[in-house]
């Protein structure tokens, strides 16, 4: 008989099969994830969790008999039945028998996948990328950091790599067979013990001790050869922080439904930015005929009335940016939501602010025009072009960083979002 301990074998023997299975199911999982975007509330989206895919996609069909026909069962545990008795058929349709059921005990229900938040968002935001991500790399100045670059034989004492040095020393001592202190002591002790009984032996031992001591002196405990220093080299560090400005028109013409659409868009953008940057800040600016920076609750909730002057929002945004978010240190994203109304006299000013002050410093400017659900016609064919839409259309030709879309229904938000941020979106607009 042999006994083999297999526990030490590398794990993950089924890994290849699991990956194949996931790959096969991936299409369906992705669809399930995308669909779930419509069903879940935005906060749930971040949590990941279970998605259910139909078992049909990963089913392994076999020939087997369906229920019905004449079936026989031999069952244990008869208590009262006699030959010829009849029993009313159980309603569940299972004739009291356990002989049915799939052979491997697997049900045919839908297959559930538990996804982590990471996996969920990966699938959810797959194929999206931030435009102009590479632009903001600061080479000089305080944004550069240092990173480890291995070990060197020279360096300042502050960078002495103690562990590495001692390891080198130890291996050198072992290699050169430097006697250990314990061995010396043991030999001396032995010599002392045999001194009286066997002086010759004691003499021999002492000679050996002397030889070893000389050797100890010749081979140093730590040699300059062993010493190592940690080495660092300067490395530019990409700016890993972003600020997202949410601008919204809250004048009387914006209904609750429109605000809800805008909110969904902001949440998606926030989620997305958080995946790409270590640190994301959000600034909420709402405007009527005047603009104000507010907190999130006020931004979405409290009603406001007044006219509509879009340029005030840009002015407020520039003020905040100058005070707190220097474009040199921050990646700046702007998302504006509006129903498209603007005071006609303000259009020129808005256009100037946008081209001269806002667009040059930001990575991406997304304009989302929200409409009423009951407006007829497919997306993109609104009854009339709004003031803002006309103004922005002129600017868009000149600057690819400006993107604009119209949205009228909740279910359009996600597709529009994907469209705005899909890979190569910016290049596409340039062309």
């Amino acid at each position, binding site marked *: *008989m*042999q*006994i*083999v*301990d*297999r*526990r030490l*074998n590398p*794990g993950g*023997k*089924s890994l*290849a*099969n*699991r*990956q*194949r*299975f*996931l*790959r*096969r199911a991936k299409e369906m999982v992705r669809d399930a994830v995308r669909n779930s975007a419509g069903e879940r509330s935005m906060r749930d989206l971040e949590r990941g969790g279970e998605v259910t895919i139909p078992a049909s996609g*990963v*089913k*392994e*069909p*076999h*020939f*087997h*008999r*369906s229920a*019905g*026909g*004449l*079936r*026989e*069962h*031999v*069952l*244990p*545990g*008869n*208590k009262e*039945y*006699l*030959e*010829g*008795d*009849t*029993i*009313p*058929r159980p309603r569940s349709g299972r*004739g*009291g*028998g*356990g*002989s049915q059921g799939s052979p*491997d005990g*697997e049900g045919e229900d839908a*297959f*559930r996948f*538990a996804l982590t938040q990471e996996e969920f968002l990966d699938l959810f935001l797959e194929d999206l990328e931030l435009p102009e991500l590479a632009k903001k790399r600061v080479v000089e100045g305080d944004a550069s950091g240092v990173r480890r670059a291995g070990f060197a034989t020279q360096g300042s004492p502050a960078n002495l790599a103690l562990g590495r040095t001692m390891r080198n020393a130890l291996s050198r001592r072992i290699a050169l067979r430097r006697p250990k202190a314990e061995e010396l002591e043991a030999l001396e002790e032995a010599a002392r013990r045999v001194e009286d009984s066997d002086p010759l032996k004691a003499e021999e031992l002492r000679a050996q001790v002397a030889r070893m001591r000389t050797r100890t002196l010749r081979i140093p405990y730590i040699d300059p050869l062993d010493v190592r220093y940690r080495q660092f080299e300067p490395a530019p560090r990409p700016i890993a922080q972003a600020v997202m400005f949410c601008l919204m028109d809250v004048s009387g013409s914006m209904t609750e439904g429109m605000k809800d659409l805008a909110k969904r868009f902001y949440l998606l953008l926030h989620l997305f930015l958080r995946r790409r940057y270590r640190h994301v800040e959000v600034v909420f600016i709402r405007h009527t005929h005047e603009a104000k920076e507010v907190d999130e609750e006020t931004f979405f909730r409290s009603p406001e009335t007044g006219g509509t002057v879009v340029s005030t929002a840009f002015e407020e945004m520039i003020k905040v940016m100058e005070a707190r978010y220097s474009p040199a240190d921050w990646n700046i994203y702007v998302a504006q939501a509006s129903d498209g109304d603007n005071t006609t006299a303000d259009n020129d000013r808005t256009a100037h602010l946008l081209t001269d002050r806002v667009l040059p410093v930001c990575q991406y400017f997304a304009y989302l025009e929200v409409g009423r659900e009951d407006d007829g016609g497919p997306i993109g064919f609104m009854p009339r072009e709004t003031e803002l839409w006309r103004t922005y259309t002129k600017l868009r030709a000149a600057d690819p960083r400006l993107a604009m879309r119209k949205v009228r229904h909740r279910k359009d938000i996600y597709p529009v979002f994907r469209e705005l941020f899909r890979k190569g979106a910016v290049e596409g607009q340039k062309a």
Partner: protein
Amino acid sequence: MNIIHRPERGLLFQGADWDFDTLRRIHDACEEIAVGELGLSLYPTRVEVISAEQMLDAYAANGMPVLYRHWSFGKRFARHETLYRKGFQGLAYEIVINSSPCLCYVMEENTATMQALVIAHAAFGHNHFFKNNNLFLEWTDAHGILDYLEFARRYVMNCEDKYGEAAVERVLDAAHALSSQGVFRVPRRRVPDLASEERRERERRQHEERMYDDLWRTIPGPTNAPAARAEEARRRALLQLPQENILYFLEKSAPRLRPWQREILRIVRHVEQYFYPQRQTKVMNEGCATWVHHQIMTRLHEQGRLSDGNYLEFLHSHTNVVFQPSFDDPRYSGINPYALGYAMMEDIARIATDPDEEDREWFPDIAGTGDANAVLREAWAVHRDDSFIAQYLSPRLMRKLRLFHLVDDEAEEDLAVATIHDERGYRRLRRALSRQYDIGRLDPDIQVEDVDLIGDRRLVLHHRVMNRQMLEPEEARAVLQHLADLWGYGVLLREVDATTGAVLREHHASARPGIVD
């Protein structure tokens, strides 16, 4: 009983802890009893200690240590893992592989008593059954299976490199769908070799010489059949029609498959055939192993090598294993093969050593022979579940299990109790239970009936419908689609009533491009 008293040699282990020396001691002690007293004949054993994750790996691959790669194994892994992690399902204590050496996987978290139990159960009980049962000897090659699986794995991997994972996956998907139609249910005629032909010829001559009778000459021979019918018969014979092994038929006769695709069909077919005996011997195999572990553990306790506490721990597990809930119990999920198998083995041993009048009447061959082990070894060697039950299920056991036979006819409003455990019913009840384990009745009988080689090359299959039990139509169509993809042309499946010959339903499928093009 031929109990041999040996001097006490002290406990094999104490408490629950074990190490590899303990395993060896346990194995050696079990071997002494298994070979010396029970007279088992065994493959060499290899005990492998594995972790929970590795047990899940083994589950996913039907317990095989190596298997080709396919997503369905990953699916099985994912399902078992979910059940296990959520606590819905425990893991087996052991898995045993029908191979030589016989591989026994034991879980690392078993207690010492459990290790003794599973070694006695798997390394001796199952091992003996694998090595001696006719079905396993006929259908499986214990010496070659591990090498074959290794070959299969490499072959599939090479194909994936050469033709792409997607192409191989399509063939495997289709082959898996047909896998239960990929076994030979009866042994095929072996290709005759010279020696056996000569021997047969000699025997035939001797037989004729002994039985010579001039009268036979006067009987008119068969009249010549029309030439067309003979031609037809020849064609069917060449294609080996009708053919129940659909994968074999495709491998040999599908017109458009490439050689590597045929080889993959062959691999799937071989693996399925390897598992075929296990499906037919569940009750016997588990009954044999359970009976053996009970004998061995009891003897170890008698010899004083197992403490009372450990023996009680064993009895606790043993009782759980052979527990059979009644049909109306919420825990009931079919007849427990461990319970039925163990009860029958115990019953046979009792009949052999301590029969009563009824036993002598029912089992004149074995009643009172005195050597229970010999009777059991004989039964284990020559039977499979259905024949074993038809032969050995005693009236006493039917009464003990309170078995009854229920007929569920869709056409009737109520279920009918056809037979119970009484004098009138014993034989019918036993036949009914035996039928329940007859693999020929469990699997639908589907055969390749004909193929139109000259016309549109359509393949015709027949499902012989017994007791009006039709195929599940949706899955049948899905499988048929796979079949058509492999065949390369249209496929027709007729469901034909076995008694009247009436066609009850037809399914069609035509080939999609992908596998053959």
